[in-house]
């Protein structure tokens, strides 16, 4: 049982990071961005390409850091992937979504389907369809709780790294949204764009920040997914439905809602894999989603106007 929960929390932290960006796009840019999942895939592969290049330049960077399966090369690549994925998200907006914004949200949603297809196939063309890993080294899981207690708990150092850094990222974002002027402007714009404008908030600046932050979080989630599972060009579309489930479950526009939604979806999937089989993984998350929406139609932390 403990193992199921730990696996669920680790997967949940990855879903949560992706879901936050999706939730922000939904509440601030005001459309369902079906290409958001692809940003996770691009983030993961950009980090792979960067770490391969960095490790080749300096073999010391390829050496494992402490108990982890990766070296400083991947750490630096994660930062690089964050920057590049954020710029990719911003470029998508500038090239595609900004031009269509006046056409309404339906047009934007359809355009995002097109963008998702284009991004996924570009990635497939560039990197091929074979699953990839950041490290070929086999990591031995540490026994945190013996098997006699609740079935035992074993986690790898990489999984602890993922969970810790995800919490740090979410807390950092929370502090940014709570205390910085730009963060407050983003919260204000999400709630009431017209009032935000007459207050003096530049809507374009808020939109830029939304795409950049969404891109950064997507890259982190993508790298974490690559680190704990594997990388495939279809990883974005595979994660898209859990991301949407987490956003709706937590309540659109709520950061902590997306986090909690991510954890619930991750846990549901983990329980389903153990109890009824991996083929029911996604179904379990959606059963939980339906059950919660019947009780709270706006999600767990949805704004009530």
């Amino acid at each position, binding site marked *: 049982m403990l193992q199921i929960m730990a696996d669920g929390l680790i997967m949940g932290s990855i879903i949560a990071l992706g879901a936050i960006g999706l939730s922000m796009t939904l509440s601030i840019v005001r459309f369902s961005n079906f290409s958001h999942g692809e940003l996770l895939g691009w983030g993961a592969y950009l980090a792979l390409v960067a770490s391969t290049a960095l490790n080749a330049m300096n073999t010391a960077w390829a050496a494992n850091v402490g108990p982890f399966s990766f070296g400083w090369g991947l750490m630096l690549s994660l930062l690089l992937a964050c920057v590049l994925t954020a710029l990719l998200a911003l470029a998508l907006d500038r090239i595609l979504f900004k031009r269509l914004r006046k056409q309404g949200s339906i047009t934007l949603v359809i355009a995002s389907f097109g963008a998702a297809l284009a991004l996924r196939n570009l990635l497939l063309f560039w990197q091929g369809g074979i699953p990839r890993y950041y490290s070929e080294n086999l990591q031995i899981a540490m026994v945190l709780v013996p098997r006699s207690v609740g079935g035992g708990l074993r986690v790898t150092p990489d999984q602890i790294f993922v969970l810790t850094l995800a919490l740090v990222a979410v807390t950092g974002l929370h502090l940014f949204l709570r205390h910085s*002027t730009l963060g407050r*402007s983003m*919260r204000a714009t999400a*709630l009431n764009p*017209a009032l*935000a*404008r*007459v*207050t*003096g908030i530049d809507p374009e600046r808020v939109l830029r920040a939304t795409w950049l932050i969404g891109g950064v979080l997507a890259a982190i989630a993508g790298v974490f997914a690559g680190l704990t599972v594997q990388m495939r060009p279809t990883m974005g579309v595979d994660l898209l439905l859990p991301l949407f489930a987490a956003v709706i479950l937590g309540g659109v526009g709520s950061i902590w809602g997306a986090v909690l939604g991510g954890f619930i979806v991750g846990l549901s999937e983990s329980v389903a894999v153990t109890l009824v089989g991996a083929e029911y993984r996604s179904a379990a998350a959606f059963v939980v989603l339906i059950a919660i929406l019947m009780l709270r139609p706006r999600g767990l932390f949805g704004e009530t106007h």
Partner: protein
Amino acid sequence: MSEFALHVEGLEAGYEPGLPIVRNASLTVTPGEIVAILGPNGAGKSSLVKAVAGLVPISKGSVWLHGRDITKTPAHRMVFEGLAFVPQTENVFINLSVAENLELAAAIVQAKRQSALEPVYAMFPDLLRQSSLLAGQLSGGQRQMLAVARALIAKPRLLILDEPSAGLSPLLVGQVFAKLREVRASGITVLLVEQNVKSALALADRAVVLVEGRERIVGRSEDLLNDERVAALYLGRHTGKQAAGEQA
């Protein structure tokens, strides 16, 4: 035009191209006065002030603020031009605290927190007591006070309010309007849209009656209080003081 706080000339504005809600409207507001825009439902009052504030696209005409052409100024730049706008509904950020609403407005115009907030809290002491509450937890009257306070943070020269009495009890309307008198006394020009004719005319120095997107009657408030045309416009078949009284 620089002698006017606001000068609107032949304004045509609407959300859809070719379908103007405001048609050929003109308006002048001199510095230091309170002007009310009156008119029946659908007359285009709110659209007129929203167009002035940059929220409704303008297709014809011009808007001048203290001699500066602001016709093409986007809504988010208006506070930097000295124009603050208080919408009729949803005029506070309900997911931010009272203090956060005011601090955000101060930060946007890069005002020092203490020097920006102190005079506003002095004018609205209740807001200081409720500063940690979420704006969504305030009553209708308190929200209206917060909305006005939020607008004043930017130290505007012209304050525009869209139906500040909407949804408020007569007692609260009196309190809000008393604050607007204080605002004017501090040197800020006030332009407001109102449905509540009697209260608006009691507050304003002058009023403009708008019908079908055009201004029809302009005059001093005390004259319009007894103007039969105003009553006729509001209630159709009724005229005179009786009609004005019913509407109020």
